[in-house]
């Protein structure tokens, strides 16, 4: 069926809340039929949000054709570019790319776009006529929307009236053979240019400084406005701010989305990041969902990182209220606390009584009707005795939410009406719903205390004088007295258990009063948990909507109850009353839910334990394993040993990336690991020279099963966990999911990395959190494994005991370790050996044809290419090596670095800078470390870690690494590990690709065999031939322009930047494969922005790789992200799609991959080949999804699908032709 829409892009004042915060220059897509109504309403209500001003959502069914008449009423070209749909790139790309015709629309003109959609889901569309990063651009002002595609045969109605609707972010969707569901569009968007009522930048009443706004669906409910009502004595005069930020009793409901359902209603949240910069963390209280909604084996999640222009469908298990059928308000928010505080939250509300429009909320605001979903039982009508949520809760509007009944020691009596709503098995901590069956469900009890004490993070005395942490009551004295080292609390329970808590708040009443934070009351705290089943009204450990406030005051004790319905991973918990003030001080913990029947032992003594980040888990039915819980942290507000703040913010209370980082309240900054006389960064990880780091030492015996529980405790940044040598399934329950060595993590996410410790001998593996920012500040550590018995580690009982140790364990000598003398023997004896001679050299790299270059490039190149590079005949590309599965790779690396070519020597490095910078001279040594391959860590790790031998080389030396390609891992990063600070961002990285067995690698033009290159043909006797395009996305680059002037990126286009330099994570230039096609060289005025990607005119094609193919050619994109900063990026490709997990046919079909950060390695096997399903020739853009600032800085390129054969590109050959060639004597 064809569905037609007339859509118009209009300028519109967007008011994001009833406090009058607004974007005066808002822009939106609207249905033509609503245009005048919207404008009229906005004119009449200039200071309050207008319902119709919301991101445009239109709907269709799978299999439909969609025809959009798009009309532009903005003063510059705009467009609608859609992801995931089928369309003709010449007519409907919504962009002006390469040699394609322009499909953006000039002001007051129209175009017709035609799309076809084949599967259910969210199809994001946004403007590419003006993708500027600043407020001159359109996306930051709201020019985005989505097409929601429903199962075939569906129709949709208004949840309030039950009448059919044509657009709208919320709908009830119905289908003859599927359950009806509530559909909620949830558009995160960041960095909107919001002014306050008076037209000024909003000011925080706490810091009296300007504050940003982060939004959902053109709405934001930042704390600043609500705090002002407290300060002015309008509401809740005893309150502080954050503890009531989400409290509807104090303020009424927020203007951000409220997703209303009845308990048990099926729900789909169509979640998209329509913003421009940050990678957010979507977290939904009480509910969980499958990471891949179409794969029943997929991993369960309740928090998900989301980068710009990426999307998910969130389908909560068991519908509204989850398994336990919980009523009440479940907050949904970005877990990055500054964003949460700046407005990025809403509520999912589960009613237990029928809402027909006749009821009111406790503040007298009418409750809109909510049509019951057909096919489900109609909820009972509210009665005076049983009014249902929220009207049985005895709160007073204008005051803080009341405390829950039963749970608080010495608390109040429940009212009669409250009792009428009690679950039949009500208990303290599980009053209105209790999934545990008394005397049947096994119980486990803990008494948790939240305390404050100073925490020292490292040997140099970096410290948090106001460290705050959960401890078990039995350990409180020991931790306070210093007999027990502080670490994040990790407790454990088994699946099927009811976990009961007594929780006592022993925190001081205030925090701060220093360079990081103003004095702030933090008089209330709780335990908010993820994943397990609980009654959110009384045990959310939070104060949300019309629920009770389930935190307690200092000295008070409350009971909570959690039910672990199934085996879970590390289940994060933290405080939800003042997290923005003190979670970064350590207020985070975990309960790890194990398989039924498990016991938890101290790995040293073998005794059963109640808590600890490390444990040995035994179970009679599954293999025993080592469990290691790692909490990464940022915004750690530490002082040095002299009491000086480390990386203080511009003003106290500023959310601009203050402080440092850590792992489990520890860090090992690499600036302290330079040793006289050489101060050589090549040995920073060496325990021979410096002893072991203070960060968690993870220990096993070879062959032990391991589960690393990966968590982020605080606070705002993306981190990228990388581990050398060992590999795990990205989704633990799904053996079809990708195998990886790296994991992006945002706060509140939880991952289990499960593997078997492979290797021989005693050896040390590096783990680190990827970005320069992380490693610089000390977010790295050592995973140590032993071949023979050591006294401090019990063997696993279900494995053969390790042999007795005769030689002593190594001890630090203060000396550099000896060189590794051989590459090891990881390969089977008959494996084919593929040899590469690689040279590390210093050279100039030209990033584009306009003169931007890195004069101090440090690169890897094949030996045969070195001459041409040094002579300037070839502008280097990153080294790309290939090997077939089953082959042994021997890389001999030669060090030809010229120290005179380093960009700095004796001074500090400077831009791109790091927090707490220090002198860190560049190393003259170099190495190569490879992801994914099998090798002997003692000899071929390419890093000098722990008590391993030296695997880096000095100038004019060489080393041979030997790697075995045991499986089809596709792309892998290659890195230098001798100097993360000074080499990596200058280009000391590359890519290794595992190809199918028996493959040959051919030049795409000549079809001659090649040894490297980003664009090749892979030919294989059993598989189809395919074109392989290799992309290395990277940032943190230090470029100078044609005149040798340093470029301080991000340098926004066509405006003068307000800030001198952005946050560290954003500092530096960026690109693909040492190339950046910066828009500053292509456009000079806002009227030309739409032409920036066009090859017409003087600019021609971009300098980023121009990939070529013929229609229908099989295409595989190899993608890695080797360097350098903590900022995560999205990768988008136009007109083509791929499986999110390449080996899992049940995984989602997408055209964008988010959360790309240091260590990301992925493979995109494009559906239907070049030109997509329609096999359309044309130019297809690949690019970053980060409008701020990547696209402007040149992170885009073109895949050119040619319509006729040219000599520049040899056609792919079918097998019959290849065999004929061979018979004919061509011995390729």
């Amino acid at each position: 069926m064809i569905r037609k829409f007339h859509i118009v892009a209009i300028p519109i004042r967007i008011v994001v809340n009833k406090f009058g915060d607004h974007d005066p220059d808002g822009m939106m897509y609207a249905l033509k039929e609503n245009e005048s109504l919207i404008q009229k309403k906005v004119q009449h209500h200039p200071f309050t949000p207008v319902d119709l001003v919301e991101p445009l959502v239109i709907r269709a069914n799978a299999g439909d054709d969609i025809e959009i008449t798009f009309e532009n009423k903005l003063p510059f070209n705009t467009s609608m570019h859609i992801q995931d749909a089928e369309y003709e790139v010449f007519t409907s790309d919504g962009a002006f790319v390469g040699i394609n015709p322009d499909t953006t629309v000039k002001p007051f003109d129209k175009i017709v776009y035609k799309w076809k959609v084949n599967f259910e889901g969210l199809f994001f569309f946004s403007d590419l006529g003006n993708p500027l990063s600043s407020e001159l651009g359109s996306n930051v002002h709201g020019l985005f929307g989505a097409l929601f595609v429903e199962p075939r045969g569906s129709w949709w109605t208004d949840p309030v009236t039950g009448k059919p609707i044509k657009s709208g972010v919320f709908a009830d969707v119905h289908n003859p053979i599927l359950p009806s569901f509530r559909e909620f569009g949830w558009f995160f968007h960041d960095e909107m240019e919001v002014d306050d009522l008076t037209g000024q930048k909003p000011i925080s009443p706490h810091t009296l400084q300007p504050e940003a706004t982060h939004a959902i669906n053109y709405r934001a409910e930042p704390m600043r406005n609500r705090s002002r009502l407290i300060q002015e004595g309008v509401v809740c005069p005893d309150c502080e701010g954050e503890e009531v930020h989400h409290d509807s009793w104090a303020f009424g409901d927020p203007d951000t989305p409220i997703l209303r359902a009845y308990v048990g209603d099926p729900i789909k949240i169509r979640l998209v990041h329509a913003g421009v910069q940050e990678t957010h963390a979507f977290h939904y209280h009480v509910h969980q969902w499958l990471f891949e909604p179409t794969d029943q084996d997929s991993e369960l999640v309740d928090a998900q990182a989301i980068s710009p222009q990426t999307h998910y469908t969130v389908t909560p298990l068991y519908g509204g209220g989850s398994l336990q059928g919980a009523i009440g308000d479940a907050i949904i928010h970005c877990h990055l606390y500054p964003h949460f505080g700046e407005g990025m939250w809403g509520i999912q509300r589960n009613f237990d009584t029928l809402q027909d429009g006749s009821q009111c909320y406790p503040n007298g605001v009418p409750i809109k009707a909510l049509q019951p979903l057909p096919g489900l039982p109609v909820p009972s009508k509210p009665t005076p005795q049983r009014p249902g949520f929220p009207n049985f809760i005895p709160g007073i509007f204008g005051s803080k939410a009341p405390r829950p009944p039963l749970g608080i020691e010495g608390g109040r009596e429940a009212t009669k009406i409250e009792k009428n709503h009690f679950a039949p098995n009500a208990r303290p901590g599980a009053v209105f719903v209790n999934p545990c069956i008394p005397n049947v469900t096994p119980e486990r009890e803990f008494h948790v205390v939240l305390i404050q004490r100073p925490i020292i993070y490292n040997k140099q005395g970096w410290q948090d004088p106001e460290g705050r942490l959960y401890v078990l009551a039995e350990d409180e004295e020991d931790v306070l007295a210093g007999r027990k080292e502080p670490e994040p609390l990790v407790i454990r329970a088994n699946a099927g258990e009811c976990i009961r808590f007594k929780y006592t708040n022993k925190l001081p009443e205030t925090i701060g009063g220093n360079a990081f934070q103003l004095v702030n009351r933090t008089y209330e705290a709780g335990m908010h948990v993820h994943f397990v089943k609980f009654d959110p009204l009384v045990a959310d450990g939070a104060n949300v909507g019309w629920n009770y406030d389930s935190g307690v005051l200092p000295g008070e004790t409350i009971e909570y109850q959690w039910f672990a319905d199934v085996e879970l991973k590390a289940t994060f918990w933290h405080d939800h009353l003042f997290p923005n003030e003190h979670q970064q001080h350590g207020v985070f913990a975990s309960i790890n839910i194990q398989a039924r029947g498990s016991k938890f032992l101290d790995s040293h003594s073998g005794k059963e334990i109640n808590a600890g980040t490390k444990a040995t888990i035994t179970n009679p039915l599954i293999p025993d394993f080592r469990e290691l819980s790692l909490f990464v942290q940022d915004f750690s507000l530490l002082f040095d040993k002299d009491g000086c703040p480390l990386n203080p913010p511009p003003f106290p209370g500023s959310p601009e990336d203050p402080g440092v980082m850590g792992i489990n309240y520890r860090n090992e900054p690499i600036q302290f690991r330079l040793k006289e006389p050489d101060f050589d960064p090549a040995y920073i990880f060496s325990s021979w020279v410096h002893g072991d780091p203070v960060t968690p030492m993870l220990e096993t015996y070879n062959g032990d099963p391991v589960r690393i529980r990966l968590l982020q405790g605080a606070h705002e940044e993306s981190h990228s966990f990388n581990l050398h040598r060992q590999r795990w399934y990205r989704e633990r329950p799904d053996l079809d999911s990708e195998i990886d060595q790296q994991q992006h993590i945002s706060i509140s996410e939880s991952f289990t990395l499960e593997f078997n410790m492979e290797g021989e001998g005693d050896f040390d593996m590096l783990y680190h959190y990827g970005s320069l920012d992380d490693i610089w500040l000390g977010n790295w550590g050592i995973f140590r494994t032993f071949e023979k018995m050591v006294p401090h580690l019990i063997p696993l009982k279900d494995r053969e005991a390790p042999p007795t140790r005769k030689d002593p364990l190594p001890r630090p000598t203060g000396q550099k370790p000896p060189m590794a003398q051989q590459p090891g023997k990881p390969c089977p004896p008959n494996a084919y050996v593929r040899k590469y001679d690689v040279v590390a050299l210093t050279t100039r790299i030209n990033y584009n044809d306009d003169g931007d270059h890195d004069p101090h490039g440090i690169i890897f190149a094949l030996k045969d290419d070195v001459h041409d590079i040094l002579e300037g005949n070839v502008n280097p590309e990153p080294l790309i090596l290939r090997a077939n599965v089953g082959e042994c790779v021997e890389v001999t690396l030669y060090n030809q670095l010229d120290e005179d070519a380093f960009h700095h020597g004796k001074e500090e490095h400077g831009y791109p800078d790091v927090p707490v910078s220090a002198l860190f001279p560049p190393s003259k040594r170099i190495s190569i470390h490879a992801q994914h391959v099998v090798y002997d860590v003692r000899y071929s790790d390419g890093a000098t870690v722990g008590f391993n031998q030296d695997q880096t080389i000095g100038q004019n030396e060489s080393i041979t690494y030997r790697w075995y390609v045991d499986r089809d891992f596709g792309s892998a990063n290659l890195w230098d590990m001798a100097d993360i600070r000074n080499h990596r961002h200058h280009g000391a990285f590359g890519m290794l690709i595992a190809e199918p067995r028996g493959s040959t690698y051919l030049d795409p033009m000549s079809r001659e065999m090649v040894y490297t290159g980003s664009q090749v043909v892979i030919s294989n006797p059993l598989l189809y031939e395919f074109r392989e395009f290799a992309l290395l996305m990277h940032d943190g680059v230090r470029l100078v322009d044609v005149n040798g002037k340093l470029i301080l990126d991000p340098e926004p286009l066509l405006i003068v930047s307000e800030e001198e330099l952005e946050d560290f994570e954003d500092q530096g230039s960026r690109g693909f494969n040492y190339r950046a096609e910066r828009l500053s060289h292509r456009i000079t005025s806002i009227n030309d922005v739409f032409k920036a990607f066009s090859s017409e005119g003087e600019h021609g094609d971009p300098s980023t790789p121009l990939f070529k193919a013929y229609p229908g050619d099989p295409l595989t994109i190899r993608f890695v992200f080797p360097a350098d900063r903590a900022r995560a990026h999205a990768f988008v490709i136009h007109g083509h799609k791929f499986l999110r997990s390449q080996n899992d046919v049940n995984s989602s079909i997408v055209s964008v991959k988010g959360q790309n950060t240091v260590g990301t390695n992925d493979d995109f096997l494009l559906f239907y080949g070049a030109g997509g399903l329609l096999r359309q020739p044309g130019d297809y853009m690949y690019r970053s999804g980060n409008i701020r600032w990547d696209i402007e800085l040149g992170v885009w390129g073109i895949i050119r699908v040619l319509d006729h054969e040219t000599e520049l590109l040899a056609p792919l050959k079918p097998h019959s032709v290849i065999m004929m060639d061979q018979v004919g004597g061509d011995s390729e």
Partner: protein
Amino acid sequence: MDINSLSKQLGIEGGDINAIRQAVVSREFKDNKGQRALILIAPYPFLIIGTIFEVVSDYVVIDAQVTNISELDDERFSIHIDDIEVFYIQKPGRPEIPDIRKEHHD
């Protein structure tokens, strides 16, 4: 009835209970030629709704009206009966299989 007489009736050698059960399902389709049926199979395209045309050995031939994939609507599929996980045959007087190709606006 015992297993042997039912085997004989179904033309199966030697009272194999698995074969009997399969044969009874096949017979159900054979007995309902011309009726609409809804079939779920684990492999692609997962869902097939259509009219039973005939049964050929252990395959049922369906004139599909609707599948999960709109491009496959109106194909004539031969489906291995042993791979049918779930089915429903719309016999006279039993609930109707909804037509998802109709416009719904209620």
